[in-house]
């Protein structure tokens, strides 16, 4: 059923989330909060070298230390053949994943896991790590993406040959893949252009910087049954990857989803779980592992940094006639940067006749990248949206007008192929135009920037169960970890369908043995896909309730209607019966067929893409180069806000992460290829005093493929901020910043250079 044009009682309101009290009282159980009898502590030995051949690992002294129960190295993991599959948040090669969890042959980045120990205390585990003797043959390393592409660069993988070039290369390279997207004839387009802007932009890898470090607890029982308690964006993902990396059956692994303390894409793959299971398998005890903050930075995924070139040509009236982009994305130590979406997203918002985009996926001696909110899109959009601002300045056009002129609409064919349908970009631009922030004059000394963002959003496999309890209250179970309030939105959709108050619906996240397969929480898919499954399950329950009422009244089921949580005879012909409410039907359920439950599994398609536009006012301290965000407004098409507060929260949080990416966040390496700022002191995420209130403006262009019209909302808001801020700086201070982060030393240097 579709509820888009119906009047809604629950969806669109702002009830308190079902797991709220646990989370404000400290009772919520995150992965590191669990203990087990006889539990051991697992710790990982990590490479101090950015690139080294592992000559030998001698663990005998560590094994001999009292209190140490197990030591594992790559030798304790099966060697896996190269096999690419798409089970997580991007193409994942299980051999690479295995080698990322435990280095085999070579350490490919500082922080790469080499061995792990399990001991009775953390202190003994630390001492054991110090007793492991690793002999290295230190190799030359490469950190920078363009340096890694050079002919004479140290090669990370001697079996990596660039894919996507013809003829296939015979020499290994750090370029894993070249991808191209072409529409029309870019060169012909540029020939017609009245104005051309060009630029070279670079971005630095940034970490998702969830506040909860990775943690898990695992037990391998003598009968081969494995239980894992961990924090991830998908416990089915943890099960699948752990099984694959250790050669286990899925049915022998049960993963309990702990509460997850933030992920943003960074918890869509495994680091610790297979290691903890391997340790437990070796000693028969439960093993708990948790990363330190330093390990999180050195060994878990940031997103790519990139070097980019862009060229855009337009007519005098602002009509863009050609666009070209070269994107070089860092993948970290193993192939798999988000270069595909990078190539697709930057120009996806615009109706362009001639486009040429080439992308490179490049490995270097950095931690393997992981997904981070709209993977790939913020990077390319920094270049595109800054270049568009330059174009607007060059044409003396309002930057909003320029975008309106070229905006993608329903029917616009994108440069990567598909045609847009049911998109809300022009509605977003209309909302910008109408917003008091956009209409207000820019304050003296400040500059205002505008930038836009696009993300596909995804659907995929989700399972949900709806149980009507004996007293008429409801439990909704899904397989989607709740990373930002999805229990609330799922419960609300179920309550809406059942016609009951949301407070009577308890939403839980069920473990891998208790619910059908559910793809991970990511790509902004949970409210869309899991919401669809839960809605359909609630509808099945309603059908069942109607059947039971019909049975009670001895009338045909077609003569029963369900309204506001009660069964009514449909019209006077059906008979005069007192309505039966959920509690009554639940109480009588043993007589009408037993427990009332429904389970639905879907592979949801048709996630509507999301568009956003951010307006940002900044002031610049010209003497120190410090930028202050004075006002920030984020407009986004959200389809339908199920719980508007959590939708706003996604937008505000994404914008704040983008502000950090824009201004201060970066990985700083020394000349040995070691990260110099692996902590929250010098990896500078925004603090409360760094940001103003962030106004989230919800535009609702319903997605017809979702029962309530919802679109994913979590990805888009991180895309525009870097360019919005860059454009605001350009207009406040007169300098175009091409390199992220736009930190004070860089901005001061740019200002000095501009003033000669």
């Amino acid at each position, binding site marked *: 059923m579709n509820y888009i044009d119906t009047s809604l009682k629950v969806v669109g309101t702002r009830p308190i989330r079902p797991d709220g009290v646990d989370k404000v009282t400290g009772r919520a159980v995150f992965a590191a909060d669990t203990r087990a009898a006889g539990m051991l502590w697992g710790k990982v030995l990590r490479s101090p070298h950015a690139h080294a051949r592992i000559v030998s690992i001698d663990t005998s002294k560590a094994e001999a230390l009292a209190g140490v129960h197990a030591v594992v190295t790559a030798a304790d993991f099966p060697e896996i053949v190269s096999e690419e599959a798409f089970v997580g948040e991007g193409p994942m090669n299980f051999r690479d994943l295995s080698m990322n969890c435990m280095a085999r042959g070579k350490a490919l980045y500082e922080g790469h896991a080499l061995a792990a120990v399990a001991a009775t205390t953390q*202190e003994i585990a630390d001492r054991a790590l110090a007793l492991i003797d690793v002999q290295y043959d230190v190799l030359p390393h490469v950190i920078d993406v363009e340096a890694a592409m050079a002919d004479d660069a140290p090669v990370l993988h001697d079996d990596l040959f660039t894919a996507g070039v013809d003829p296939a290369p015979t020499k290994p390279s750090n370029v894993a893949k070249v991808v191209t997207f072409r529409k029309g004839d870019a060169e012909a387009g540029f020939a017609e252009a009245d104005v051309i802007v060009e630029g070279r932009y670079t971005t630095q890898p940034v970490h998702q910087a969830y506040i909860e470090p990775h943690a898990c607890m695992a037990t391998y029982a003598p009968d081969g049954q494995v239980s894992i308690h961990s924090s991830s964006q998908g416990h089915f993902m943890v099960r699948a990857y752990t099984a694959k990396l250790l050669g286990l059956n899925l049915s022998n692994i049960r993963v309990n989803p702990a509460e997850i303390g933030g992920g943003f894409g960074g918890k869509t793959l495994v680091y610790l779980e297979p290691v903890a299971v391997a340790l437990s398998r070796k000693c028969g005890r439960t093993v708990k592992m948790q990363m330190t903050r*330093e390990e999180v930075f050195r060994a878990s995924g940031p997103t790519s940094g990139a070097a980019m070139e862009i060229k855009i040509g337009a007519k005098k009236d602002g009509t863009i006639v050609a666009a070209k982009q070269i994107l070089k994305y860092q993948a970290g130590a193993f192939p798999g940067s988000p270069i595909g979406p990078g190539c697709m997203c930057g120009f996806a918002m615009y109706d362009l006749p001639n486009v040429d985009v080439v992308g490179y996926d490049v490995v270097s001696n950095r931690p393997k990248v992981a997904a981070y909110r709209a993977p790939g899109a913020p990077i390319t959009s920094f270049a595109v949206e800054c270049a568009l601002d330059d174009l607007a300045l060059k044409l003396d056009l309002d930057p909003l007008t320029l975008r309106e002129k070229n905006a993608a609409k329903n029917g616009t064919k994108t440069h990567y192929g598909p045609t847009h349908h049911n998109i809300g970009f022009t509605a977003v631009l209309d909302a910008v135009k109408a917003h008091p922030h956009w209409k207000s004059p820019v304050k003296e000394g400040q500059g205002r920037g505008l930038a836009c963002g696009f993300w596909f959003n995804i659907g995929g496999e989700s399972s949900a169960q709806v149980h009507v309890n004996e007293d008429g209250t409801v439990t909704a179970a899904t397989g989607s970890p709740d990373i930002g309030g999805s229990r609330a939105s799922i419960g609300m959709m179920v309550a809406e369908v059942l016609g009951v108050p949301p407070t009577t619906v308890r939403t839980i996240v069920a473990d891998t043995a208790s619910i059908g397969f559910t793809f991970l929480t990511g790509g902004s898919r949970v409210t869309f896909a899991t919401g669809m499954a839960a809605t359909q399950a609630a509808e099945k329950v309603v059908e069942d309730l109607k059947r039971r009422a019909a049975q009670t009244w001895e009338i045909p089921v077609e003569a029963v209607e369900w309204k506001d949580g009660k069964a009514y005879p449909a019209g006077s012909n059906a008979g005069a019966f007192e309505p039966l409410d959920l509690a009554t039907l639940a109480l009588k359920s043993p007589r009408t067929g037993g427990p009332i439950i429904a389970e639905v599994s879907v592979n949801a398609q048709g996630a509507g893409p999301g568009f956003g536009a951010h307006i940002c006012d900044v002031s610049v301290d010209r003497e120190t180069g*410090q930028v202050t965000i004075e006002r920030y407004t984020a407009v986004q098409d959200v389809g339908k806000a199920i719980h508007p507060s959590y939708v706003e929260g996604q937008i505000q949080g994404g914008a704040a992460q983008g502000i950090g990416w824009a201004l201060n966040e970066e990985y700083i390496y020394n000349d040995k290829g070691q990260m110099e700022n692996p902590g929250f*002191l010098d990896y*500078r995420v925004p603090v409360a005093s*760094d940001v103003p209130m962030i106004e989230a403006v919800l535009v609702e262009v319903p997605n017809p493929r979702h029962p309530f019209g919802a679109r994913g909302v979590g990805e888009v808001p991180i895309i525009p901020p870097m360019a919005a801020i860059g454009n605001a700086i350009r207009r406040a201070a007169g300098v175009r910043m091409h390199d992220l982060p736009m930190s004070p*030393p860089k901005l*001061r240097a740019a200002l000095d250079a501009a003033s000669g």
Partner: protein
Amino acid sequence: MSGLSYAAPTSVDEAVKLLAGASGLAKVLSGGTDLLVQMRSGRVKPDLIVDTKKIPGLIGIREENGSYVIGAATPGAMVEAHAGMKAAWPGVVEALDLIGSTQIQGRCTLAGNLCNASPAADSVPALFAAGATAVIVGGKGRREVPVEQVPVGPGRTSLGKDEFILEFRLPPRPARSSDAYLRFIPRTEMDIAVVGCGISVTLDDKGVCTTARVALGAVAPTVVLVPDAAQALVGHKLDADTLAKLDAAAQAAAKPINDKRGTIEYRVKVAGVLARRVAAIAFDRAQGFVNGKAH
């Protein structure tokens, strides 16, 4: 089981004996906001921790003949709440206040900030500028030294193995005196200073500077006093010419390094910028114009 032991002596003598008798590395614990981080990272591996907070007088602020005396283990939050200190030494107070978060303020101390001997320590340029002295106790008794004699290099102090700081003394304030501290950080909070600058001045009734002390942080291996910068102020009102000379003197004294927190070029420029801005605040305060917090 670790070999690390802990003692919380209740007298100076007891503390000195513990330090002197320690067989391995002994560390004095006051606020612990640096020490615990260093221990956790493995950079410091003490065998004995001597917690000084139970020694009478180590926590608290008192006035003695126009001087303020601050116990070495007094947490930042307590100093900030002290009306007399805020009026007489707003620069010292705001510098201490800039160390870390509210949480850190609940623990951090002047002694810890000074003895950690980081060139970027926020309270230290303000203490240098203030002409503060440190009262040091140890096996050989008690000595009072200017604070600038305590740090001798990054992470190194002039204190002996059995010595620790008992208290700080801030000199009496003549009329029309004040001080200020600013630091530059990339965010608004929670960072280590890229450059810090503390200035203390006394003016005459016409607004002409009669004495000045200028200190810079994070531009050399230790916090440094910059006599040339002070000289640029003495005998002058804070006009454009004086500010330019101050800026130049601060830049000339800045000998920073390139590191993850800033480049040489940037730090030198910002040293000049901050010196001008800090001087403006200190002069205003000395003339009773402003008493704002310099965030």
